[in-house]
């Protein structure tokens, strides 16, 4: 006969909340180990993008300020990979809902918020792995070279990962509204992917018509890309707007804002979400 009583003290409650978070993260880790090809499969598309833009479209793009286009491109590709981590987060949480696993978790005495926190941490470590793999691809395929100090390079990746973490929370929130994985994919990829092009990730913004340029200037993705370029010492195009003149500050603000909005929303939604 196995019986368990709820935590008696505040310290024990906190310890269990942490334990829940790590157990959930451990589950994601086991899932990843069960399909080792998953990360590599998710990186096929960005590698193709690297080749397509680096060597095909890029051959027709010349940077207004001069500089090597492929070195300009890679931070854009990194950002795109981070932005699309929302898709995987939305899909997996929607699948869990559809299968009733979320119901089972919610009928168990799991600390409030621990389930989503655990998942987001696991997704974040997956983002770091993706960044590392894409960096190697960039070095090998595109001749990408970070020219900043090692610390600046690390800071660049940290800023990208923070943006990835923000997108994980955004994706999680969306995933809690849809019926299944396919819908989650449509509800995230469908607008995030085009949005990565409405930014300075692939082309300099100088040639855009004014209204479109204003959108691209204030697109959080542009700030992230500019910040990464600055920290990596890669070529940047001229910055006409505040976010692109202060990209590190701007991208930090954007990412923290997205987390501050969507993490609490997602936790609230999780507590009432019904499986269908």
């Amino acid at each position, binding site marked *: 006969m196995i019986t*368990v*009583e709820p935590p008696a003290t505040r310290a024990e409650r906190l310890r269990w909340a942490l*334990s829940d978070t790590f157990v959930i993260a451990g589950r994601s880790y086991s*899932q990843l180990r069960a*399909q080792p090809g998953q990360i590599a499969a998710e990186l096929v598309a960005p590698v193709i993008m690297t080749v397509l833009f680096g060597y095909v479209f890029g051959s027709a793009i010349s940077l207004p300020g001069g500089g090597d286009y492929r070195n300009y491109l890679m931070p854009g590709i990194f950002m795109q990979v981070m932005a699309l981590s929302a898709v995987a987060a939305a899909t997996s949480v929607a699948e869990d809902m559809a299968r009733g*696993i979320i119901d*089972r978790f919610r*009928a168990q*005495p799991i600390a409030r918020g621990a389930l989503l926190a655990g998942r987001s941490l696991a997704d974040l470590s997956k983002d770091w792995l993706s960044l590392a793999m894409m960096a190697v691809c960039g070095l090998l395929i595109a001749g990408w070279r970070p020219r900043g100090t090692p610390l600046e390079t690390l800071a660049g990746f940290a800023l990208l990962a923070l943006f990835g973490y923000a997108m994980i929370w955004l994706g999680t929130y969306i995933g809690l509204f849809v019926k299944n994985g396919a819908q989650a994919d449509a509800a995230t990829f469908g607008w995030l992917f085009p949005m990565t092009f409405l930014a300075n990730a692939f082309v300099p913004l100088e040639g855009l018509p004014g209204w479109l340029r204003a959108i691209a200037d204030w697109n959080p993705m542009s700030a992230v890309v500019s910040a990464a370029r600055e920290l990596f010492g890669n070529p940047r195009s001229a910055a006409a707007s505040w976010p692109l003149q202060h990209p590190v500050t701007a991208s930090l603000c954007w990412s923290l804002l997205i987390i501050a909005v969507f993490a609490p929303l997602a936790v609230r939604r999780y507590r009432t979400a019904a499986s269908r």
Partner: protein
Amino acid sequence: MIHAEGVRKRFGTTEALRGVDLDVPRGSVCGLLGPNGAGKTTMVRVLTTLLRPDGGSARVAGCDVVGDAERLRYRIGLAGQHAAVDELLTGRRNLELFGRLYHLPRRTARRRAEELLERFGLTEAANRPVRTYSGGMRRRLDLAASLIVSPPVLFMDEPTTGLDPRSRLALWDELRALVAEGTTLLLTTQYLDEADHLADRIAVMDAGRVVAAGSPSALKAKVGGDRVSIAFRDAADLAPGVEAVRGVLAGEPEIDAAERRLVVPVSDGAASLVRVAAALDAAGVGVEDLGLRRPTLDEVFLALTDAPAREKEAA
């Protein structure tokens, strides 16, 4: 063990529960029966703290579903309509994971997983990912996952939907064994034979209300008592047959000439059957089939839930 009073829940403009009362004594099985959309699942979700009721009150295992939800979650097991297990992980890893989320120490969680795999005949498949399991195996793993903390109260929402007959019978045996060990069980089902076989008490739900409750036999008695049913061999046997039956039975016979069939309500069951058999034999009437019929739960169900009337109302 489960006590609910006037539980109400509304989704937008739909009233899913319109004041449900439910009382399930310790160690008994309550079958929640009803058509789709009757509110069975909603009721289970309220009782398992997944939904907060808009009105009324409910206690499970001594804990209020709203005020004492956390303590309650340590005392219940829930097996929903889906086999809610992780497809990618192995059966063993699934059970360890759920055990750890009940805050069992790692070693205890491992031992408990082992015990449950053994009990549900999954030891051999323990190290295979769940996606390779059959439907019956998944259900067993799901049930195992809901039993990790030996819950005094177990909720099962349509536990045998989609199972083949053999797996279904095996699951029934499992549930009976759990109840014999003292578990209180609330199960929802659309299968009347399931409720009939497992439940001590049945609550029939329709349109967000409990429209009838009682033991299976009491519910059957409510719809009507026993009946003697006779099928004659030839059309010519019908008239003398009716004559003979009228001679020994007081009830008004219901005659279906096309089917050469006669049904008479009786109060003393088998004794009436013997008298009818003797009278028909004496009259020399050819009989194809003769029997005592009790109302099935299907008839109870249809009589109580009155689906056609409701459809008319909606149209």
